[in-house]
C-alpha cells in the first residue's frame, strides 16, 4: 500500500525545489498533507495531490492555513506523519497552532517558502524575512527546530531530515525555503530508497504506561484510539497530560522540559557546512539561497589568493551557538550575508568575541539574489584590499 517505488525509481531527475520537498516528504513517510494555496509554495501541493493517493496518503485542501496546520496536528495524533506548506502570510496564520503542536509535543513538518513581506508583499520573489518568525512567531516561551536548504537537492534531503528530527524529538520542524530555491530547477539524485535513514516516533509498549509528555529524553507517543485514554491539551499540563492552569509550578516544569528536550540533544540536531576554514582569516557566513552566491564569491576570492572561508548554517534554530562561536572566534573578520535586515547577524554578533569584526551584507536590492561580484567588491573594501 505504501510503496514509494510506484512514484519514483532511483536515478537522476531534473526537478523544482518545491517538488523535491514534496518527494522528500513522501519518502520520509509523510501520508497527510494539508494546504491552502499560496505563491510560491503551490507546487508542493500539486505534487502531493497527484502522488499521495498513489501511496495511500491524503491530500486535503483546507479552508485556510489555520485549519491546515490544525488538521496536520490531528492527523499526527491519529498516527500519520503529516506536513503543511505555505509562505509568509500563511505562516503567520499558523503560528497559534504551531504553539499548540509545541505544547502537545506533536511531530509535524511546516514548510515556509519565504517571499518578500510584510503583508502580502511580493509573492514570487525570494527573501529571508521569516527567520525570527520561524523561531519566535508563536506566543510564549518555547524551542523549535528550523532548517534552511540552499539547493534543490538540499530541499529533498532536509525534508527527510525534518521528518526524522520531528519524529525523534516530537517537535514541529520548520523548513525555511524561499521563492528562489522553491522555484529553481536542478538535478537531484534519488538514491536507492533502502539507503535512506527514516526515523519513526517512539510508541508506548504497555497499556498501563501513562507518561506521554515532558520527558527530556522524549516520552513515547501513543495514537488516538489505541486505548490509552489520552488527555492532550495545549493548556499547561504535567507528564501525564493532566491539565493545571492555576499552579505556576506546572508552567515552570513544562517550559523547562520543552527547552531541555531540545537543548540536551543540540549536538545531534544542529548542522553546518564549511569550506576553506583551515587558513581563513575572513569568513562569509550565510544560509539558504544566499549561501549559493556566498560560495561563488568565496571561490572567486580564492582564485585571486584571498584567504576567505565559507560557513553555511543548515540549522538556523536552535542557533548552533557552540559550533559557530568556536569557528568564528578563530578568525578576524566575519561577513554575514542575508537577504533581510540582519536577523542571523544579530545571533552571530551575540556569540562572537568582542575583538572580532562582524559585518552585515544584504543584497544590493532586497528581494534579489546577492551578485557574487557585488559580494567580492564589498569583501575587498572590507579587508582593505
Amino acid at each position, binding site marked *: 500500500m505504501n510503496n514509494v517505488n*510506484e512514484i519514483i525509481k532511483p536515478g537522476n531527475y531534473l526537478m523544482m525545489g518545491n517538488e523535491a520537498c514534496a518527494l522528500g516528504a513522501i519518502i520520509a513517510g509523510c501520508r*497527510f498533507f*494539508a494546504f491552502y494555496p499560496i505563491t510560491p509554495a503551490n507546487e508542493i501541493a500539486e505534487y502531493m495531490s497527484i502522488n499521495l*493517493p*498513489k501511496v*495511500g496518503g*491524503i491530500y*486535503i485542501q*483546507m*479552508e*485556510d492555513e*489555520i*485549519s*491546515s496546520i*490544525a*488538521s*496536520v*496536528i*490531528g*492527523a*499526527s*495524533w*491519529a*498516527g*500519520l506523519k*503529516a506536513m503543511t506548506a505555505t509562505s509568509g502570510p500563511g505562516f503567520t496564520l499558523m503560528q*497559534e*497552532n504551531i504553539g*499548540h503542536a509545541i505544547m502537545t509535543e506533536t511531530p509535524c513538518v511546516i514548510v515556509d517558502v519565504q517571499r518578500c513581506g510584510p503583508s502580502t508583499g511580493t509573492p514570487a520573489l525570494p527573501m529571508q524575512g521569516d527567520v525570527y518568525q520561524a523561531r519566535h512567531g508563536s506566543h510564549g516561551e518555547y524551542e523549535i527546530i528550523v532548517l534552511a536548504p540552499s539547493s534543490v537537492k538540499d530541499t529533498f534531503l532536509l525534508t527527510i531530515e525534518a521528518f526524522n528530527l520531528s519524529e525523534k524529538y516530537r517537535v514541529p520542524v520548520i523548513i525555511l525555503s524561499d521563492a528562489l530555491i522553491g522555484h529553481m530547477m536542478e538535478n537531484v539524485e534519488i538514491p536507492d530508497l533502502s539507503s535512506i535513514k527514516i526515523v519513526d516516533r517512539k510508541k508506548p509498549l504497555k497499556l498501563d504506561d501513562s507518561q506521554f509528555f515532558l520527558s527530556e529524553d522524549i516520552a513515547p507517543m501513543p*495514537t*488516538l*484510539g*489505541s*486505548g*490509552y*485514554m*489520552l*488527555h*492532550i*491539551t*495545549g*493548556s499547561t499540563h504535567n507528564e501525564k497530560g493532566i*491539565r493545571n492552569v492555576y499552579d505556576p509550578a506546572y508552567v515552570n516544569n513544562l517550559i523547562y522540559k520543552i527547552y531541555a528536550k531540545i537543548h540536551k540533544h543540540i549536538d545531534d540536531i544542529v548542522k553546518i557546512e564549511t569550506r576553506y576554514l583551515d587558513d581563513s582569516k575572513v569568513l562569509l557566513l550565510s544560509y539558504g539561497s544566499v549561501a549559493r552566491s556566498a560560495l561563488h564569491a568565496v571561490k572567486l576570492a580564492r582564485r585571486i589568493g584571498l584567504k576567505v572561508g565559507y560557513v553555511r548554517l543548515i540549522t538556523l534554530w536552535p542557533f548552533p551557538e557552540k559550533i559557530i562561536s568556536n569557528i568564528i572566534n578563530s578568525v578576524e573578520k566575519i561577513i554575514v550575508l542575508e537577504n533581510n535586515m540582519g536577523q542571523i547577524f544579530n545571533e552571530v554578533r551575540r556569540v562572537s568575541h568582542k575583538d572580532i569584526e562582524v559585518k552585515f551584507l544584504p543584497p544590493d536590492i532586497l528581494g534579489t539574489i546577492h551578485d557574487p561580484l557585488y559580494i567580492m567588491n564589498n569583501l575587498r573594501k572590507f579587508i582593505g584590499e
Partner: protein
Amino acid sequence: MYEHPLAKYFRKGVRQPFCSGCGNGIIAQCIIRAIDELKIDIRKIVFVCGIGCSGWISTFLNVDTLHTTHGRPLAFATGVKLGNPELKVIVLTGDGDGAAIGGNHLIHAARRNIEILTILVNNRIYGMTGGQVAPTTPHSMKTTTTPYGNIEYPFDLCKLVEAAGASYVARWTTFHVKQLISSIKKGLLKEGFSFIEVVSQCPIQYGKYIDVREPAKLLLMLKDLSINKDKAKTINEKELKEKIIIGEFVNKEVIGFSKAYEQLIIKVRGKIE
C-alpha cells in the same frame, strides 16, 4: 458497594469543572448515555474540544481527548478522522468557539460532509471569558460588552449548517434530554457530518443578565421557549422571534468525505497497478 452503571466512563479523582447548575453536565451525561446505549467501544471514540466552558465536557470523562485552540476543533478533528477513519470523532464546541472564531471551519466541515459528530453548546453568551456578547446572543440583550443592548441579531446555526450541506442537523435544549440522547445516537451512526445544537443554561453569566439564577427555573424557561419545528410552521413570524425552534431538521444519506477519499485512493491505485 454499588457503583453507578455509568461510573466506568469517568476519570477517577477528576472533578467536573463546571459552575453548579451549568448545562454542560447534562450534555456530558447525554453523550455517555448515548454511547452506552449503542454499546460502542468508548476506546474507539475521540473527543476533540474547543476552548470555552463547553470544551471541558470531556475532561472528566475517561476518553481520548484532544483539547485544541479556540475555534479550531473541527479543523483538528478533520485531521484525526482522515488520519484514522476507523475512529468515531465527536467535536465539542461552544457558540463562540464554533460559530464566531470557528464559523468558517463549521461551514466547510459541513460542506465536505466529513464524518464528524459536532455537538455545539449554545449558552448564548461567552461563559468562560466572563459574559461577553456571542453571535447567538438574542437581539437587544445586555451583556458585559453590550451594556446598551445587543444591536446585532443571533445566528440560526441549524439553518446555516443545513445550507452548507450537513447530513444530519438537529436542535434541542438541555431540558429535552430524551430527544438529545436519541439525536446523539443518530449522529454517532451517521455516515456524514452531523450537527446537534444544544441550547443550554448558563446560570452565572447569562443568568446574571436576565436576573434568573436558579438552574431549575432556567431549564423551565428553555422548555417554555421551545417550540417544535412542525408547530413553528403554524405560528406567525413575530411570535416565532422569541422562540427556540427544536427538532430534527436534516437526516439524509450522502457519502462522507473520508469514505470518498478511500474510494479515490482505490481509483488512483487501480490505474497504476
